[in-house]
């Protein structure tokens, strides 16, 4: 099997294009936030403080002036275009090498970011109010893409024998899905915590209304987003771990051996289980639970970066210089 270099180069070019589109999307999301109408924020303050009649549709886009709405729509269009080229990166990698395009860390991480972008885009299309989170999702996405391009890039190439298995394909695909979804969930929890802290400061008078944070959706809505995505991601992650164990049984002779990667997948699973519990436990609901979710995201990122690049388990992908 040979690598088709034209397709491989096309894939690399699309990578740069998608980073560019995402960056523009970040700018547009920023504009949407920055030009959001102040009076809206002030009204919200009154509503929240005086417990007057509850705002009829606090999540509705109705309050937005058309210019701001246009920035939001432009940002969404750029995000979707970016996601399409981003999918093209993987598609042409796959065609160039004639295999699933997640055989090394570069491809894996690229796919995870794509899942995060698509999850966010789907949510934001269905609930326009979530577009206000756009900067906070897409800016980390751009950073992640740049880091992937700089530090994880690997030439298109064939897979080593041990990686040629359909269970592995299932395992890696679901791991990517789970990771991407947890990524969105974790960012939502970070935003939730920032927003809560900001609100507390405003309440005690050490901060002013009118910061970017005030244009985020209400804390409860962000928290709900975090929980729902985690609820969606958890069974997928569970399945990914089980599929990995099934594959390990046929490849390494045991289904579980506490290899560092396995250990961290387990740790992440346990942390997300703790998050789901915390969400239904008095005293942990809200802030405590959100922190658990943030820890979960930290564990996932650690598992991707540290465990793949530093430790010497069976999982360490080749091809990272």
């Amino acid at each position, binding site marked *: 099997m040979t690598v088709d270099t034209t397709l491989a180069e096309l894939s690399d070019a699309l990578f740069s294009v998608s980073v560019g589109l995402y960056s523009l999307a970040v700018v547009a999301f920023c504009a949407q936030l920055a030009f959001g109408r102040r009076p809206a924020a002030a009204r919200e303050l009154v509503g929240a403080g005086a417990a007057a009649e509850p705002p009829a549709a606090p999540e509705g886009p109705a309050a937005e002036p058309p210019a701001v709405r246009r920035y939001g729509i432009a940002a969404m269009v750029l995000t979707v275009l970016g996601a399409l080229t981003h999918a093209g990166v993987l598609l042409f990698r796959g065609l160039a090498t004639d295999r699933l395009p997640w055989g090394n860390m570069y491809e894996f991480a690229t796919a995870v970011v794509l899942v995060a972008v698509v999850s966010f885009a789907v949510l934001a299309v269905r609930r326009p109010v979530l577009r206000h989170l756009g900067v906070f999702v897409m800016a980390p996405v751009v950073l992640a893409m740049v880091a992937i391009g700089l530090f994880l890039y690997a030439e298109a190439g064939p897979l*080593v*024998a041990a990686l040629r298995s359909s269970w592995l394909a299932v395992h890696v695909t679901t791991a990517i899905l789970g990771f991407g979804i947890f990524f969105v969930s974790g960012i939502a929890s970070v935003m939730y915590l920032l927003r809560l802290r900001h609100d507390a400061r405003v309440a005690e008078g050490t901060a002013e209304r009118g910061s970017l944070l005030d244009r985020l959706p209400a804390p409860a809505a962000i928290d709900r987003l975090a929980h729902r995505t985690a609820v969606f991601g958890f069974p997928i992650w569970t399945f990914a771990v089980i599929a990995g164990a099934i594959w390990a049984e046929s490849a390494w*002779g045991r289904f579980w051996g506490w290899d560092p990667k396995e250990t961290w997948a387990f*740790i992440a699973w346990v942390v997300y289980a*703790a998050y789901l519990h915390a969400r239904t436990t008095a005293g942990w609901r809200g802030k405590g639970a959100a922190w658990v979710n943030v820890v979960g995201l930290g564990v996932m990122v650690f598992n991707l970066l540290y465990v793949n690049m530093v430790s010497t*388990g069976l999982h360490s992908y080749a091809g990272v210089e």
Partner: protein
Amino acid sequence: MTVTAPPREAAAPSPPPARPSAGRRAWNLWVRWWRRLTAMRTAIILLFLLALAAIPGSLLPQRSLSQTNVARYFADHPTLAPVLDRLYLFDVFSSPWFAAVYLLLFISLVGCVLPRAAEHFRALRTPPPPAPRNLLRLPDSAGLQTRLDDAAALDVVEEELRVRRFRVVRRQTAAGPELSAEKGYLKEAGNLVFHLSLVALLLALAGGKLWGYEGSVLVVEGGGFCNSFQNYDTYSAGPLVEGNDLSPLCVDLEDFQAEYEENLTASSFTADIRYGGPGEEGTPQTIGVNDPLRTEGDRVYLTGHGYAPRFTVTTPDGQPPLDVSAPFLPTNPSTMASEGAVKLPDLGADQPQLALQGFFAPTGVVQGGILTSIDPRPLEPQVALIAYQGYLGLDTGRPQSVYAIDQEQIARGALNEVGSANLALGETLTLPDGTAITFTGYDEFAALQLSHDPGQVWVLGAAIAVLVGLLGMLLLRRERVFARPTAAPGGGGTVLTVGSLTRGGGEGGERFAGLADELRAALSARAPARPTPPAGGVSPDPEVPTP
């Protein structure tokens, strides 16, 4: 959950009782601790502890993964390592403290989930609870206007809810008729299946560890092994495995092939084997990476491969030439450069013992006298040999690696280097005393591993149950709907108050709005057709039997 159940005994405002007996006090203490252990917040803490406890197992070398790495760590950190070892930090996953955490977690889980199972079972057989007094206080509620009378309006609601798979009950209370409905019992069942399957998974894992074993052996093409502990290079067995429990299985390696891509990435390894009982002809089968042999209860894996160079040794005393071969371990999997040793303690009565320390290159190039390998395929096999004569020290009782010469014997002067050479196929190294060593060829060997884990299928079954339970628990919604009709203020109709309570799934509001709309539509579809049904025509059952 019974998490925050108030300590009822203590709260009773009875006159100060006589000091409770010691047994009573111990019981109370036990109940208090049990409640604390099975509380949800304990579960969160224990889950966190479990995650924390697993961390050192990934950051420090573990004996279960690599004895060599642990030994290296001991060499690098001579003072720290023994302290860590005392804390089981090189055996984290079999350490008592790790076990303590997960056992506590599972006790907590059982103590939490079993009472909930009992409660759930009772709930399954009791009808949905009566409607709360003020339905408008529920998280979601609405008032629906209709021209139908009480009973007919409730009929419509009942029908709509039954279509949506609710269990529906109608009650006649002092305040008039009312309706309670519930669905989503499977959510609770999913919760139970999930948590109890986790316990089953742990038990299956434990069973596999107790009754399982694993042995590995290097087999040269044409050779074989039978399943018994003496025959393995390394093995590990659970405490309940007896030596004569091993299944009677023999495996012969007929042929091994490795294939490579153009850029020398390994694309496939396969071994043609025959397997069967001892002394049997055997069944042929090809095994490979990701594709083990599975017999009843045992699996045989191809875990590695390498080269075993062959030599002919001719001694000057006129004995017939001796053919020897030894497996060399690959030190670089991408070029298959390998290292190993040949030890010949019995060459003849008056011959010194001979040892060859060797480096094998399947495709060798010599640069500046140094042999290196540039290709994993055996295109140009060469060996670099260092020959030693003297005393090997094999019978001193000190264990020696088969793949290396005991450096101690060299340092002590018992073994002396007597010659070295890089040899291509057919070339000979002649030592000062006339001994001649010819590199005559190579065999390929396969590293085979036999595993026996009786718990494995149970683990798989439990894992599937975990997943099914999880999906049920997370995707289903538990939902209660109540309805109560009151006469419309202006007369000539009914206001139906409907309220709902949802657990799980979030977004109750939207779904309830949808339900209310559909009820409204159903009510108005019915109303014009039958303005007022004759009284007594439909007698509302106090309790409609539920399916």
